[in-house]
C-alpha cells in the first residue's frame, strides 16, 4: 500500500509542480493572451458543459476511433503481407519509408481535394497518418518470428490461418502494440488539425473559434481539455496493452532475473 502511494506521489510530483508554477507565474498577469490560470479554471466547467461535450468532443472522438481502427486494420494486414515475403519487402520498403517521412498534416489539403471537407476527409487524414508506424512495426514484428518456433509449427503441420493467428500475429503483437501506441498520439494530433482546416464541429474547430473570437481563457481551457483527453487515452491504452500482452511482460521479467 505504501509502495503504491509512493509511486503515485512520484508520478504526480512533477505535474503538481508545473501546475503550481503556472498558477503562480500567471497569478497577477494582465497580459490579455496569458490570462491567470485561475480564470481558465473558472471558465473550464462553464465552457465544457455536457451539451458542448456531446456536440464537439464526441464527434471528434468518433472520427478518431474510426480513423484509428481503419489504420490498425490496414496496417496489420499490409504489414503481415509485406513482412512475410522477402521479395515484396525489398520492393515496397523504400516506398513505405518515403511515405512515412511525409509529415501527415501536409496530407490534409491534398486529401481535402478528393475527399471533400466532411467527416470522410477527417477519417482519411487520421487513418493516413496513423497507418505508418503500425505498418512498419508490424513488418518488423513479422520478420522477427523465431526460427525454432517456426520450425516447430512446420513439423506439427501448423499452417495457413492457424499459423497466422497462433504464430505470426501473436509473436508480432508486442511490436504491433508499440506501433499502435505511436499511432495513437499521431491520431490525436491529426484529429485536431483536420478540424482546424474545415469543420463545423469538433474540439479543434472549437478551440480555433475561441481564438478567433478572442475568448482567450476559453481557448486555454480547450487546450487543457485536449491534454487531459490525450492522457486519458494513453492510460486506457496502457491498461488494455498490459492485459493483452501480460505474457510478454511476464517473459521479460523472467528473463531479467528474479531480482526484481
Amino acid at each position: 500500500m505504501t509502495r503504491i502511494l509512493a509511486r503515485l506521489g512520484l508520478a504526480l510530483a512533477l505535474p503538481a509542480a508545473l501546475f503550481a508554477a503556472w498558477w503562480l507565474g500567471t497569478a497577477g498577469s494582465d497580459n490579455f493572451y496569458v490570462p491567470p490560470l485561475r480564470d481558465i479554471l473558472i471558465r473550464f466547467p462553464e465552457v465544457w458543459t455536457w451539451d458542448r461535450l456531446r456536440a464537439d468532443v464526441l464527434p471528434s472522438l468518433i472520427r478518431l476511433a474510426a480513423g484509428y481502427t481503419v489504420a490498425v486494420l490496414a496496417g496489420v494486414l499490409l504489414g503481415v503481407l509485406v513482412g512475410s515475403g522477402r521479395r515484396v519487402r525489398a520492393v515496397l520498403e523504400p516506398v513505405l519509408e518515403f511515405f512515412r517521412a511525409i509529415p501527415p498534416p501536409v496530407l490534409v489539403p491534398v486529401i481535402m481535394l478528393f475527399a471533400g471537407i466532411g467527416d470522410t476527409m477527417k477519417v482519411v487524414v487520421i487513418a493516413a497518418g496513423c497507418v505508418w508506424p503500425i505498418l512498419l512495426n508490424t513488418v518488423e514484428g513479422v520478420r522477427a518470428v523465431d526460427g525454432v518456433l517456426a520450425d516447430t509449427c512446420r513439423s506439427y503441420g501448423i499452417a495457413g490461418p492457424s499459423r497466422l493467428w497462433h504464430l505470426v500475429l501473436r509473436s508480432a503483437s508486442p511490436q504491433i502494440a508499440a506501433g499502435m501506441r505511436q499511432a495513437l498520439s499521431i491520431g490525436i494530433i491529426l484529429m485536431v488539425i483536420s478540424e482546424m482546416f474545415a469543420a463545423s464541429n469538433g474540439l479543434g474547430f472549437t478551440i480555433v473559434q475561441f481564438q478567433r473570437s478572442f475568448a482567450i481563457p476559453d481557448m486555454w481551457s480547450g487546450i487543457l481539455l485536449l491534454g487531459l483527453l490525450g492522457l486519458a487515452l494513453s492510460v486506457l491504452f496502457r491498461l488494455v496493452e498490459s492485459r493483452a500482452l501480460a505474457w510478454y511482460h511476464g517473459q521479460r521479467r523472467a528473463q531479467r532475473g528474479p531480482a526484481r
Partner: protein
Amino acid sequence: MLLDVRGLKKVYEGRQRPVEAVRDLTFGLDVGDLVCLVGPSGCGKTTLLRCMAGLLTPTAGEVRLRDRPVTGPPPGMAVVFQEYGRSLFPWMNVRDNVALPLRNKGVARKPRQDLVAEALAAVGLADAHHAYPWQLSGGMQQRVAIARAVAYQPDVLLMDEPFAAVDAQTRADLEDLIRDLWRKLGVTILFVTHDIDEAVYLGQRVIILSSSPTVVREVLDVDLPDQRDQLTTRSDSRFTELRSHVYAQIQAAKRESTVGSHDAARPAGLAKQVLQ
C-alpha cells in the same frame, strides 16, 4: 522398416564453394526402436535430423517414413528441439501448448483433453497446466516440449540434442524420463546427441557417425539390461566398455578427418580442426 534413410547427402551451396555436410548416410529404425545417433561435434547431426524431419531437402538420397518418401514435415513425426526456451509458445499456457498440434490435427475436444492430461502426467507436470512456459525452469520447459510430442502420438519421435542446455542433474532425470516413456508408451525414438555417455545409457542401439562429410561409422547394439538406472548402469563394467568403445571410435573419426582433409571440399572444416 518404419523410418528408412538411404544414401542421404546434403551439400550446402556456400558463397565461395559448396560445403558437403553429409556425404552418404544409410540406416533404419524399426517400430519400437530407441536409437541414439552420436558423432563428433560439427559432424552434421542437426543437418541430418532436419532432413529426416522434412525441414530441409537433401541433395541426394531419400528418407522414407512407413514407405512414403519424406518431402515435407510428415504428419507422423514429432520433433523435440534443443532450444526448449524457443520451441514453446510463450503466449500460451502449458496446456494450450500441448493441445495446439492436436487441435490443428482435428482431435475432438474430449479426447484432446484426455491426451493432454495424460501426456503432462507422464512427464510429471500434472499440476502445471495453467503455468506459462517462462514461469518454469529449463528442465520443466523441455518436459512440456516432450509432453507435446508424446501427446501428438507420432510414429517417430526425433530429438535433437534435447538435453544439451540443461544442468547435469536435470539431465539425468530427463534421460530416465525418456527411458520410462519409451518402455511405457512404446514410442519409436531417434535421439541425436554429442554426449557419448548419454548415447550408451539411453540407446538400444547407437549409430556412430564420422566427422563431416558424414557417413555411418558403426552401428553398435547396446546389450545392457532394459531396466536402467543412473547409479548401477553407469557403474556396470559393460557400460564402461561400450562407452570406451564409442569414445575411441569418435576420437578415431576426428583424427582421420584431420589427416584426410586436404580433400578440397572442406577447407573451413580443416581450419576449425587445426584450431581445436
